């Protein structure tokens, strides 16, 4: 080992290191000096290894560690990093040439505008308006979906499949499985490819651009104070924003949060109040015709998000960890990076949802032929009337149980048939948004948070979503908003 690469720590530490080195006899992958340093920093994995290989000397070693610890006011890992930093600084001083930066370069100006709340908040709103509403809502869920749905699927693919199935398969039961209203090819594939995929794709393109530009940490900084109120901190902005793309993915990402409490609150809010892009796209497309319904929907969802988050943070015990985040420099996103990321995310999403859509189609098919479905629909119909919706909406909600976006897409069909008044549309949109996102997200919640927590969340969300719809319906009626 060349001595030039070794950092010389202060004499107390060096003393302790050499004492520990002498006590180590086992064979390790790392050098004895590294092992000694890691032991002083109380690395749990290395401590276990040493306990295993040098069990007879382990007590002596831990004595040395605790004696050394007493000599300093701060933890040893801190002392060691301070001394390493000094060494790094001295190396950098010798070899790095600093070019004085032009303070008024464009990225510094944008950075200032973005992190200052006065200009930053309007920028957030602009990003939401153009990114989410214009691009995902109007372009993705409007233009692209219309083209795929009406021009391609309805005109060419659906009649073609129906004809083939009718010609070659004589049994009408099997015909229903593959084609017709709820068939695998005509419903599952149509929903997945023509409605959901373009919306999710549009969201992922936008998310990748925002992610690569370095905007997310700055957004975290801006919302930190609000998020503290709901028991989270700014770091939680990443899973929450990702939730607008796919709640299932976001639930998985919520494991990056520091404490169990934060993870539970984030998962809960994702399940309750964050609409995923597929749903968001369909809802935006549905409601944008009547701006008032859209505004009421936005207010309701934000209110529920903040109120329930606030209550959850009061109910759940535990401390709140501090907010810290590095702000990487703002960069212009690279097109290839954005496209690769979007592609891999869409691939993940497609592989994850398509089997579920097919599965839902099969379930609906089984439900239809056994009559089980009609029983469930009969149970749901009074609930629909209860929250002021036409009984036919029961179907949407039942499918929504399998996937929330599926339900929203069903709502889209219902609206096209002209079955909903503006008030009913608003109530249905709010109720569907608050509903558990989809079976995949629920499965992910069970996997990440445990079955008990997941069931408790579902036990709250199911009645709460219908109750909110009920209250909203009464309020809208009483105030005569859509009179």
């Amino acid at each position: 080992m060349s001595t030039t690469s070794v950092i010389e720590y202060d004499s107390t530490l060096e003393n302790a290191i050499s004492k520990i080195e002498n006590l180590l006899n086992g064979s390790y992958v790392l050098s004895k000096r590294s092992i000694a340093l890691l032991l002083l920093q109380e690395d749990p994995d290395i401590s276990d290894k040493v306990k295993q290989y040098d069990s007879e000397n382990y007590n002596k070693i831990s004595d040395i560690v605790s004696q050394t610890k007493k000599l300093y006011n701060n933890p040893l890992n801190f002392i060691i990093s301070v001394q390493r930093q000094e060494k790094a600084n001295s190396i950098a001083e010798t070899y790095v040439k600093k070019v004085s930066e032009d303070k008024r370069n464009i990225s510094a100006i944008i950075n200032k505008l973005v992190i200052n709340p006065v200009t930053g908040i309007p920028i957030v709103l602009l990003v939401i308006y153009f990114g989410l509403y214009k691009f995902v809502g109007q372009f993705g869920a409007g233009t692209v979906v219309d083209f795929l749905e009406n021009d391609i699927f309805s005109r060419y693919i659906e009649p073609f499949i129906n004809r083939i199935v009718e010609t070659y398969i004589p049994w009408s039961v099997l015909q229903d499985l593959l084609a017709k209203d709820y068939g695998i090819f005509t419903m599952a594939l149509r929903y997945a490819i023509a409605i959901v995929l373009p919306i999710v794709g549009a969201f992922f393109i936008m998310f990748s651009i925002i992610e690569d530009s370095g905007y997310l940490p700055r957004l975290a900084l801006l919302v930190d104070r609000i998020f503290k109120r709901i028991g989270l901190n700014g770091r939680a902005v990443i899973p929450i924003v990702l939730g607008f793309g796919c709640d299932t993915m976001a639930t998985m990402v919520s494991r990056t949060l520091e404490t169990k409490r934060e993870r539970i609150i984030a998962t809960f809010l994702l399940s309750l109040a964050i609409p995923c892009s597929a749903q968001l796209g369909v809802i935006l497309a549905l409601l944008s015709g009547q701006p008032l319904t859209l505004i009421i929907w936005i207010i309701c969802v934000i209110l529920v998000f903040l109120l329930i988050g606030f209550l959850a943070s009061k109910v759940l015990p535990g401390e709140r960890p501090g907010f810290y985040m590095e702000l990487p420099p703002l960069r212009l996103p690279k097109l290839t990076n954005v496209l690769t990321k979007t592609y891999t995310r869409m691939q993940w999403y497609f592989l994850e949802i398509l089997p579920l859509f097919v599965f839902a189609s099969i379930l609906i098919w089984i439900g239809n032929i056994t009559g089980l479905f009609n029983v469930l629909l009969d149970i749901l119909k009074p609930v629909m009337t209860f929250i002021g919706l036409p009984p036919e909406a029961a179907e949407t909600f039942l499918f929504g149980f399998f996937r929330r976006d599926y339900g929203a897409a069903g709502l889209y069909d219902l609206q096209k048939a002209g079955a909903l008044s503006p008030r009913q549309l608003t109530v249905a949109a709010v109720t569907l948004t608050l509903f558990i996102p989809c079976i995949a997200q629920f499965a992910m919640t069970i996997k990440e948070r445990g079955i008990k927590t997941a069931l408790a969340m579902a036990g709250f969300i199911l009645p709460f979503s219908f109750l909110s719809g009920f209250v909203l319906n009464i309020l809208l009626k009483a105030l005569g908003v859509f009179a």
Partner: protein
Amino acid sequence: MIKCSFCGTEFDENDSVKACAGCPMSKACNKLKCPNCGYEALKEPKLIRLIKGLFSSKRDVQCSSENKKKNLSQMKSGDTGIIQSIMTNDSSILKKLMCMGILPGASLSLLQTFPAYVVQVGFTHVAIDKDIASVIIVET
């Protein structure tokens, strides 16, 4: 600095918030809790504080010119200084700051204080909240 009228401990307003951690009211009440004995005293009304501030502003300036050590949460945006120490035993906070290179001896400049503190250390920009900012002691 506030002196507890019950046990005589001197404490900062920030320390008193820590003592309130378990209380659902958190900061919404109008009291200060002593971190040593838990005795709750009423906060000084804002008007009185304002008047006191008017008269003591001169003395404060003298104080600060003598004593150049401040914690980060007392600094203004645009201030620069050298990190003197990290005043906490909370190893999770120490670990976080360590990872970001916020260590004694590093020069620091404060870029923004609201809604979160944004500091530049070396070539790195870091955002932290007030709780963490208050443990960083800076010599200006």
